[in-house]
């Protein structure tokens, strides 16, 4: 999952990013002003945007309006010090999915972010199941046939994304765009390395494969559609 934090209070943004990276498998980008934030939000396929309202150059609500006008479906969580009911209503009516006021609890913010992403992928259950594989997105526990499997961070991040999109073909470009933040070195062959590592640990082998390769298109987790 890749998320964007648009927040002019750099220290706060860094803290949120750090907390998200340590407790979830999200790749986090930070933008410190409205103009840059709007540009980033429009040009990258984020899974969630955490948006401050009072931003230099371009206001948070203007960014949100622009995103929705352009047809973006990205979940947006407004994180602001503006706390009146009127502000909350205005924020939600402009097109945000959630509203949290500062000062906030970090645990709550993380839980809300995860909930928003689950809804976005239409997966209300935080425990994702494909066949005998089970991925608990809240605690990042992976079990196969009720046996826990330990995965490195990047492998878990890839698995979570593929399982969230189970039943769909996921292209390599999508994987790269959703798993790496702006600053990461992006090589698409890295994806293949991680996929083969996951297969080694999780795939029961033919004829029942967990991760299918769809030639020329990408990967698919779960049963191949007929």
């Amino acid at each position: 999952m890749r998320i964007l934090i648009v927040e002019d209070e750099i220290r706060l943004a860094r803290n949120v990013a750090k907390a998200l990276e340590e407790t979830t498998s999200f790749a986090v980008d930070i933008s410190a002003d409205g103009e840059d934030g709007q540009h980033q939000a429009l040009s990258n396929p984020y899974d969630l945007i955490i948006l401050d309202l009072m931003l230099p150059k371009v206001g948070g609500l203007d960014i949100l309006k622009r995103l929705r006008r352009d047809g973006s479906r990205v979940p947006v969580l407004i994180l602001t010090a503006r706390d009146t009911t009127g502000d909350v209503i205005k924020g939600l009516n402009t097109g945000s999915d959630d509203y949290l006021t500062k000062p906030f609890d970090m645990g709550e913010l993380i839980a809300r972010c995860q909930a928003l992403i689950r809804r976005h992928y239409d997966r209300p259950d935080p425990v994702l199941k494909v066949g005998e594989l089970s991925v608990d997105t809240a605690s990042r526990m992976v079990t196969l046939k009720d046996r826990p499997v330990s995965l490195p961070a990047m492998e878990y991040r890839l698995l979570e994304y593929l399982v969230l999109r189970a039943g769909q073909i996921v292209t390599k470009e999508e994987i790269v765009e959703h798993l790496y933040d702006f600053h990461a070195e992006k090589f698409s062959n890295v994806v293949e390395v991680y996929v083969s590592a996951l297969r080694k640990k999780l795939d029961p082998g033919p004829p029942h494969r967990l991760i299918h390769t769809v030639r020329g298109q990408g990967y698919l987790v779960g049963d191949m559609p007929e």
Partner: protein
Amino acid sequence: MKPVSIKLRLSLLVSLLTLAIILVVCIAAYVETEESLLSSVDGTLRVTGEAIIATLREEGESPEARQADFRAIMGDPNSGGLGWCRIWLEGSEKDLFSSGLPHYPRRALWFELLPKERPEVGQASFFSTTAVIDQNKEHPFRALWMRSVQEHQVVNVLVGRSSYHVGHELAEFYQFLLIIGASLTLIVFLAVPFLVSWGLGPIAWVSSRLQTITHKSLGQEVVTATQTVPELRPFLVALEEMLSRLDKAMRQQGQFIADVAHELRTPVAVIKSTLQTTRLQCRTTGEYEHDIDETLEDIERLEHLIEQLLSLARFEGIAESSRLGKVRLDALLGDIVGMFEARATQQGGRIMLSEATCTWVRGDEIGLRQLFSNLLENALQHGPATGTVRVTLEDGPDEKVTVTVHDEGGQIPPEALPHVFDRFFRVDSSRSHASGGSGLGLAIAREIARKHDGDITITSDPETGTSAIVHLPRL
């Protein structure tokens, strides 16, 4: 004492006024009627009297014929009612003629009924009198006394008529007036409150309209709507203007409180997020130290903000020109420049204070110190680090002294200049956050300058730099 309502006042006023009018009209009608009744009696008396005088003037008539003429003029006393007559020569005890009032003693007619002042010779005078006729009943009379000269002798002619019917008719008219007056009074007392209520209707409407105004709907109130009477319009227009001013002030206050909340919450949110993130897992000593230092920095920022807010509140609270004393401005500036010199040198820049003559202003020393500290703070923060900040003190214009704090920076864009004195306004938000500016420094400075009957302006030009110019009234 409870104030008397306008309705009651107006009702009383209108009622009393109407009563007074009724009273005056009644009295006038009574007097007029009395006069007209008397004048008709007087007319008859005058005609009778003149006829008698004319008879007296007829020459060559025997006394018997005259008596017959007089009798003919007066009519039969037994059937002619209540007329009576006396004619006598001045000085003579004997009457030339007398008729009427058969039961009345002569002396009484002679002495008791006559008024004290007799009319001039050739003149006539009317008078009213009463005579006791029968059963000691008083009877009103109207009489005419004429004196004329006949054959070198003064002849007195006294003609009288009963004026009983006048009194009777007047009494009837009086009763009529009493009944009409009383009924009119009753009607007035009953009707006036309703009329006054109707008249005060627009005021009642306005007051019930005003009761629906709440602090939330202040700005959108249109109280001068259709149904207002022209007299109330100026009042309502003024009221509407006052409401919109009030609304603006409340909005500004609300905005300020929202801004304060925002400004206070942000550092708290940063501190909380730092500590919560730190607590997520075990860290190295170095990481802990780093996080604690960051937290302390944020707390300092919060402290500074609270300090600034308090001083803003303090200077807003000072009543105009209270606590103002004599302040030697040149010495004060020297003092403040001295305090900032170390910081400027540390940055690699310097502060220069121009030579100034001894200048006294009327002011609050703490306030002025804060004002110029804020300006120097800004100059050091926003000017180039190694630049020179120049502070000059000059006389004029118009009884004012001018202090200019100039730095070599010039990055305030023209569109931002009108807003630099707004609370929490920052030209570059993220940059100032990092440098600890609260966005209140200039707002406080202007508040102080205005409390001193002075003002402050800012000019900024990329080539010449930024100047803050303070005008204060000279002592």
